[in-house]
């Protein structure tokens, strides 16, 4: 069963992403959420999700650090990581590449695009 992990310290963003991807649940995808970087790391280790939506700006362990740990230190390179950044907030794209993120996405996101992209990565038909 494919798993999608949603990591954001803002409950509202988690809710919005969950509802955006909800229809995938009916097709057997498990949605998991985490509200901080450390929990996210634990879940990635134990559950090895296919996709992680990862907020960059989080207290304590931020998205860059989580991404770097997963891709470099843990060596789980097959996890597709989508960095979430806020529109208007300065985002260091080079740093995103350096830590091994696959793509980045700005909030507010377009729900249709998020769903389509997720289906594409999971290899699910539209």
């Amino acid at each position: 069963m494919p798993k999608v992990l949603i990591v954001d310290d803002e409950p509202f963003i988690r809710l919005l992403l969950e509802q955006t991807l909800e229809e995938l649940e009916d097709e057997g995808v498990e949605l998991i959420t985490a509200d901080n970087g450390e929990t996210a790391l634990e879940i990635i280790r134990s559950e090895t999700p296919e996709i992680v939506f990862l907020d960059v700006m989080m207290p304590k362990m931020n998205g860059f650090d989580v991404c770097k740990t997963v891709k470099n230190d843990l060596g789980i390179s097959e996890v597709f990581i989508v960095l979430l950044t806020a529109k208007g907030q300065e985002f260091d794209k080079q740093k995103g590449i350096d830590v091994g993120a696959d793509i980045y996405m700005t909030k507010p996101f377009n729900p249709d695009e998020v769903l389509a992209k997720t289906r594409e990565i999971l290899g699910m038909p539209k």
Partner: protein
Amino acid sequence: MVLLSLAKLIKKKEFAPILNRLVGSLDTPIIIEDDEGRLLLATDGSERHNKFPVNSSDTIIGWVYGNEKVAPIAALLSYHAAAETEKRNLTSETLNKYKEITLLYDMVEQVSSCLDTREIARLVIEQAIKVIRLSRVDVLLLNKEVGIMELVASYGNDNEVSMTVKKGVGIAGSVWASGRAEIVNDVGADPRFVSDTIKISSLMCAPLKSKDAVVGIIRLGSEELVNYTAEDLKLFNTLASLAAVAMENASLYEQLKEAFYTTVYTLAETIEKRDPYTGNHTKRVMEYSLAIGKTLGLQEEDMARLQLSAVLHDIGKIGVKDSVLLKESALNDEEFAEIKKHAIYGEEIISGIARLKTAIPGVRQHHEKFNGRGYPDGISGEDIDITARIIAVADSYDAMTTDRPYRKGLTIDEAFEELRKFSSTQFDPEVVDAFFASDVVEAYFTANSRGKIIL
């Protein structure tokens, strides 16, 4: 509205343990089923004595079976469902807003870098299709000369009807007159409706405003009856104002471009006025040059600077004394040296204008020869800029074929023969060949039929 499934509701991570403890402490048999009779929870020895409905916004989404003691469970589930439904509705409302915001961002990005009115109209249509339920969109712009709105872009207009709108006539015409956007959900019942070849049942129409004047209209509609809301209109209006700002920009850019080219041409005309025998020479050199450039397949950018330098190639002659410039007999060495300076004067004159920087090589080098025996620098071959090599051919051909007071011009064939003779020495052979392959006669007539230069 999203309808909730009871199965999902009771499986929620935070809720499931609470329900289980509650059911355990009830100490009475209980069955929970969804509205399609699927068993979701059952305890030992359960029997279907009574049933209590679980509601979500007036719809029954499941049943709780058992004795009277299980009734509060049904009430709790209904309450939970109501709260969950409300949360979902709010979330989907926000997601819809997200969708609109991202589309508007996209649109601002695309439209603000666009300087072409038709392209802007096309972009607006594309975005409107994404956010508003519709089967047809028309963008009309004011033709100031005739005072009516004309169609510039449309979607779903299969007959390609070239429609126009008059001020005050029809719904669009009345939006034009009032300057305010409108929703007409039942078009047939609106007395202003002018019947059209395509059936539209509901429509929204918004003005494109530049400052306070209406310069265009966007109209969208649906064949099926749609209930357009104030929210739809607000979004539509935002699209329309974005488009209007972008179109205003595009039109200012057009005006600026026109003013620039008019100035350039006026500058070129000053030299024609000093030497009236060359009448229309500038226009013909420009047309011949462009014809050659087209045959050679020059890029748009090179074509633009070719045009500018062709128009301005002789501008330096303004610095040459009348006694030399207008002399009808042969020039002595000193006088010829004076004439030669016009290539350098030309560069000096136009170098003060930043936008003419790319035209400098064409102006300075148009008397250079392919074999290096020209002036002012004596450069050769491909060291001579392509625009200058082209202007050299166009300029010589026109000089040869034009009548002068002291001599009759050559025929086209004779002039071609001359060009052929000096190909590779004076002229770039590829340019000469391109000239022969171009429609020279057409270029001649285009130049002479032009009143003003339209660039």
